[in-house]
């Protein structure tokens, strides 16, 4: 269970390219909660499903003053094409070179196959990691409850009982 950076520690800063080849710095998100979502690989079935569900609930996630950053070891060209295919509007970041460096910083790099674990880090507006989730089984995506429970713990409950049209 004790895999990856622990809750209570400062989130390691990084700069990575997004799917458009532009640099994205974690520190620029200060003031927002961040869901940092490591996933093993673009184009794989479980990651497709996981990120499609995040996209589907992105509006609700943003209601918690939160933004989502996806991270995998794929290059930014792959990220760009995959995001377009899935209609993703949140950034996918390329932890491509030095290979998996950010995953290593967060303690979720897999030496066995060169990918990252499937993992979520919930970072608050001050840049502190408040919660983490690491998949026991790489083939099983996190339930959406994991994301919303963590955001509620950080931000407090939102009354979102009115259906959106």
């Amino acid at each position, binding site marked *: 269970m004790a895999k990856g950076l622990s809750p209570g520690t400062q989130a390691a800063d990084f700069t990575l390219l997004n799917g458009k080849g532009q640099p994205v710095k974690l520190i620029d998100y200060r003031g927002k909660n961040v869901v940092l979502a490591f996933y093993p690989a673009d184009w794989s079935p479980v990651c497709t499903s996981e990120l499609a569900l995040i*996209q*589907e609930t992105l509006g*609700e996630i943003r209601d918690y003053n939160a933004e989502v950053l996806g991270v995998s070891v794929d290059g930014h060209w792959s990220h760009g094409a995959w995001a377009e295919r899935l209609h*993703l509007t949140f950034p996918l970041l390329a932890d491509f070179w030095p290979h998996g460096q950010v995953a290593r910083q967060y303690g979720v790099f897999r030496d066995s196959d060169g990918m990252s674990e499937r993992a979520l880090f919930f970072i608050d507006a001050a840049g502190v990691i408040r919660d983490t989730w690491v998949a026991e089984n790489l083939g099983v995506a996190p*339930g959406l*409850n994991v994301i*919303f*429970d963590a955001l509620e713990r950080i931000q407090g409950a939102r009354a979102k*009982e009115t259906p959106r049209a």
Partner: protein
Amino acid sequence: MLDERVQRTEITEEDWILGPPTAPVTMLEYGDFECPHCAMARPVLEGLVAENPEMLRLVYRHFPVTTVHPHALMAAEAAEAAGAQGQFWEMHNMIFAHQSQLAYDTLRACAVAIGLDVARFDLEMEEHVHLPQVRLDFRRGVRDGVNGTPTIFINRLRYDGPRDHVSMLAAIVAARKAAHGRVRGAA
């Protein structure tokens, strides 16, 4: 913290349920009509219910993932519209059978084929009468911890295993054994 893989919402009388209320095992599916994995799971799930009429019931809730499945929400509304006329499961089956072509014309043709009052169907679709129900299902799915489509719970525990008959039957039998001896209604 609650186990993250446990269904939190209750099954209610308003849910679409296939099988007897007394069944010791309840299988809850969150599905998307345009999702190919859901279409593949359908005959397996319904076969299990048909073969185990005393043991198992199936509950279906909507979880349309609209960014990748542009017709899924409208299809879910169509199934609810059919449900309002007492034919939810008939429509559910028709929609899955026509999964690759779920434009409104197809949904309407499905409604005609199962003998719905089509004027009423058109009106309710036009006015999105059933959209709140679909949204409610989706929110319940978020709360329960949907992690893809389909997501299946067997007696409240999320089933992340393979969705073939043998594997699922084993999980169902195990759930019944676990439920046996427990107070009825606790599950």
